[in-house]
């Protein structure tokens, strides 16, 4: 009987630990290199994003929004997309969406940037659940410093999707552009945190 009581107490204790320690959880979808001085980065290049979505132009759209959001913060300067394309051609990067560390170093010396951002668009468009539909975006980014080509920051964001409100009242969720802007804002907040 005594052993059973102890066992019950142990289970209750474990449950308490699980519940209360959840508050101490960190945001696991962001990585920041602790030794990196992000304040030193003034010019960045945003590479074309990899698109895993059905829409072929989606990656370009998300990249445009992200570049503009980043520029409008006034914290960093983003080199024009055409200049990045020139750098990619001159550095002979076969796959500009996923450059190797050596390629990043080479590219940076051509277009004179202090960091290179790459991204993957994982989901973009409409999702359905029963009779309800809504727009969703899921994107992850990486920043590489140009001395060694090492990843110094990585984050992902997913916005939109079907909410309880959509399920109850319909409405189709938020427009795609709005959802994209929210995801870009979220990523920039994570970068400047």
């Amino acid at each position: 009987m005594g052993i059973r009581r102890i066992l019950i107490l142990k289970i209750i204790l474990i449950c308490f630990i699980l519940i209360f320690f959840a508050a101490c959880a960190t945001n696991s979808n962001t990585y920041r290199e602790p030794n990196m001085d992000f304040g030193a980065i003034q010019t960045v290049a945003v590479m074309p994003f990899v698109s895993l979505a059905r829409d072929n132009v989606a990656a370009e759209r998300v990249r445009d929004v992200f570049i503009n959001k980043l520029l409008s913060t006034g914290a960093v300067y983003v080199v024009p997309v055409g200049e990045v394309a020139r750098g990619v051609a001159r550095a002979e990067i076969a796959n500009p969406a996923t450059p190797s560390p050596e390629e990043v170093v080479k590219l940076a010396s051509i277009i004179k940037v202090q960091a290179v951002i790459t991204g993957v668009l994982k989901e973009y468009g409409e999702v359905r659940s029963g009779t309800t539909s809504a727009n969703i975006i899921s994107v992850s980014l990486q920043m590489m410093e140009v001395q060694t080509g090492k990843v110094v920051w990585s984050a992902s964001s997913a916005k939109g999707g079907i909410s309880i409100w959509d399920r109850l009242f319909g409405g189709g969720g938020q427009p795609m552009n709005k959802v994209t802007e929210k995801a870009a804002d979220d990523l920039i907040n994570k970068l400047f945190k």
Partner: protein
Amino acid sequence: MISSTNFLNRACILLFAGVFCFSGCAWTEKNVSKIVQTHEGKFLIAVLPFENLSGTRAPLKDIRELFINKLRARGFPILEEETLDKFMARNRVRYTGGIDKPLTQAFKNETGTGGVLISSLELYSDANPPKIALTSRLVSSGDAPVILWIDGFGLAGDDSPGILELGLIENPKALLKKGVGRLAESLGEYFDKKADRGPIKSVKRKFRPKISYRSDVFDPSRKYTVAVVPFLNLSGRRNAGEILELEFIRNLKTIEQFDVVEPGMVRQQLLTLRMIIPEGISLANADALFATLDVDLIVAANVNEYQDYQGVFGKPKVDFFVQLIEKKSRSVVWSSVSHNEGDDGVFFFDLGRVNTAHAMASQMTRWIGEMMIEGSKRVQGSSEMNLRKGEK
């Protein structure tokens, strides 16, 4: 002596009679005289064959003929068709969407024209209700081709249906007549020096760019010469890049701070330099254009969406990303993302609905121009952020 006095009196009487009797023709005479005064006694206009950017078959010859008739009725002297045909054959003119310097010189020397009218049909749908969009510009002939005037229209038959749909236009010809008449009026107003771009209040706030950035390098009070390079078209619509390019030229041209270079000259330079811009303009390309065209700013853009619809159901969509590169700093001085749909902010009875992508793009580009030269207001950041800060 007496006879000579009588003769003078008669001449005076005839002169007064002439002044009174011909006062009915005052508008035409006055305007023609102004046109005549503008360019060494004669301002003959050559109307080039229309460029078709609509992506569909359209009665281009009929539209051109209608436009020429409207211009003639307004008193503009138009270069004879036969002379124009011979000139075009002699100079091997095949591209009619723009004009370069050698051609404007040839126009001046060989035909004596003062200006060349270049028109692009952007949309033609005769499905009920019809939809038509057209942009036209007058480029001066001679050694320094300058865009003298540029205007356009984007009309749909159901733009203002009114009560019991009495205002609905179902005949494409009627709609065309309305639009072309408006263009001829606008050209007349240019020569009358009455042309006014109107207050920005007339352009709805919902068409402001959704995200914008303006560098401190850009001086809103300075005068800039601008070249608009061909836009990258990522949309499904054919020629969307060229259409939006024309909208930018049209709206930047109305702003005093900007002198816009004729796109035909930009095209010619790109061909001469063997420059292709598959993924946007690089700084090396920009440098070459700055040097050859002698401009201060280069406008480049990606058109992500440019969509019109046929018939009653649907809505136009326009989505683009634009960047301006400045000569001295070799940096981006303006960057913005704009996207709108025809039914944005429309809640009741289709009030405020826009039916053509042209009409929407025109207002969107107008806002960009206005925001670029805004002095006191904050233009950087997202439109929502600016609204939150209480700037209206």
